[in-house]
């Protein structure tokens, strides 16, 4: 049975705060949130996208490790499954509380609307959760089992479909030019890999520290390289988004992009999303990456990607819609997350950490075995 360890006090406190937030949301409903009719989607939606995408990214990297046969990545095969499941469950908890009445989800089954992106999201991510559970089971019963290979192959298709559909939920909304178009499904797939790699790096490093040893250098180096590649592409994608947003023909798109780079969201965008989440990790990972450096970069990337999700959700809603031509509206719709929303988001982070630690204690994730390889990890890094 898992025992209490000192480090668990922090995620435990976050979970307790999250529970307080959940009670407040269930008692006061929409009044507990900073959202309004003008800005109906807030940080809980952004948080759900963050967790679901990170879960998908971790799963995709795990699948890559599974099929690529790279020795350096072998130790993450099992942890990636359990981490993805932990992140996905945390995300589901967040969206369940945001919805307020999860019992009505029964109509997803009995009255499905196949034109709705959210219906497909529920379907694809439910399948993903089921497949993850099956993969976790097979990983414990017999890692060499052919069933695991088959399920993993199906899961890869499912993961790509799920995360692209998650992006399409936004991209198909024609009334929000900042979200609309083919860009976001691809962008979220890219940044899912970025956040998945960061989550895996953080989990592997913390797991090793928990056992009082250094993290496997080869694993950390491999994850650092994946993060580095994803960061470079993300930086280019961001530059393109800002350039085309500011020079585009649609005034609402220009205003939303301006809100991001020089308006109400600018401080968060430049300081947290670009500075902390992109440039500093790029600088850290560009040098020869040791475990500590990769871990620091991973934590920064995770914070940056969370604010990337929040900024994206906000920028799409802040510009008032031009319903009546010529009417001058307020310049921007405002939104500030309440303590309930921060507590719930923190609670989800704590829950994901505790769930992973729990699964690591109860199941054989192979994370303890990496210690035996010790310094040999450095040699393996050269093969990545």
């Amino acid at each position: 049975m898992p025992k209490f360890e000192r480090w668990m006090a922090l995620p435990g406190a976050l979970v307790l705060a999250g529970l307080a937030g959940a009670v407040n949301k269930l008692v006061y409903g929409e009044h507990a949130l900073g959202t309004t009719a003008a800005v109906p989607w807030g940080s809980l939606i952004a948080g759900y996208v963050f967790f679901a995408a990170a879960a998908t990214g971790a799963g995709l990297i795990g699948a890559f490790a599974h099929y690529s046969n790279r020795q350096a990545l072998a130790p993450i095969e099992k942890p990636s499954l359990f981490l993805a499941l932990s992140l996905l469950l945390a995300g589901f908890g967040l969206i369940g509380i945001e919805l307020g009445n999860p019992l009505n989800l029964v109509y997803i089954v009995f009255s499905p609307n196949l034109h709705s992106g959210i219906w497909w999201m529920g379907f694809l991510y439910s399948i993903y959760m089921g497949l993850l559970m099956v993969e976790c089971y097979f990983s414990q019963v017999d890692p060499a089992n052919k069933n695991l290979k088959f399920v993993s192959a199906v899961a890869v298709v499912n993961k790509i479909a799920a995360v692209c559909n998650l992006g399409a939920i936004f991209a198909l909304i024609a009334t929000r030019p900042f979200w609309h178009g083919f860009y976001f499904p691809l962008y979220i797939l890219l940044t899912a890999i970025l956040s998945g790699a960061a989550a895996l790096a953080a989990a592997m490093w913390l797991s090793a520290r928990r056992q009082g040893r250094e993290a496997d250098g080869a694993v950390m180096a491999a994850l650092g390289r994946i993060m580095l590649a994803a960061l470079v592409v993300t930086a280019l994608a961001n530059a393109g988004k800002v350039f085309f947003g500011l020079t585009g023909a649609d005034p609402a798109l220009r205003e939303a992009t301006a809100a991001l780079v020089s308006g109400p969201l600018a401080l968060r965008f430049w300081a947290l999303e670009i500075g902390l989440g992109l440039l500093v990790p790029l600088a850290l990972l560009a040098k020869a990456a040791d475990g500590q450096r990769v871990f620091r970069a991973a934590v920064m990337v995770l914070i940056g990607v969370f604010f990337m999700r929040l900024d994206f959700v906000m920028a799409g809603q802040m510009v008032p819609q031009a319903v009546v031509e010529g009417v001058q509206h307020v310049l921007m719709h405002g939104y500030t997350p309440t303590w309930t929303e921060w507590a719930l988001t923190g609670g989800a982070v704590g829950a994901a950490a505790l769930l992973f630690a729990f699964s690591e204690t109860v199941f054989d994730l192979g994370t303890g075995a990496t210690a035996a390889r010790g310094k040999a990890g450095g040699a393996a890094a050269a093969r990545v």
Partner: protein
Amino acid sequence: MAHYAMLIDAARCTGCAACRVACQMQWQLPPEVFFNRLEFRESGKYPDVKQEIVPVQCMHCDNPPCATVCPTKATYKRADGLVLIDHDKCIGCKYCVVACPYDVRQMNDRGIPEKCRFCAGFIEKGEQPPCVSTCMNDVRVFGDLDDPNSEISKKMKEKPVYQLAAEKGTKPRVFYVKRGG
């Protein structure tokens, strides 16, 4: 089968907001929740300035994005043209609120979106929606476009009309009389 629609002659609106209050009374809405609103458009340069008032509400679109995105068909379009919400089926995802190009959806205390219902239940008894019957200047005309003898059918033949944000392809069933038409 009736096919309901509304014609709004915004030039007649004085901005008294009796339509909004009557609607709130009809549906027992709290003060912060409203199904119709007035938008104020200013134009011209001093001293030749003018203000126009444009009432805005759910357009009961024939191609409603709110219904397209709803994962449980809680928002649906009736054969008589009304776009309604089945509160029991709504999961509270607010996708419809985000997707509405007219910003007319409001949230109630239970986290369920609300909007103009074209007074379903009342109009079937032959009553007029209170936003129509309360208006002192007959800004709004509500009726059946399939009935050539209805007031709305006759007025729409008399005057040129337009729809708000028609370029979005939503095919609204709320029409506006063109100024000077």
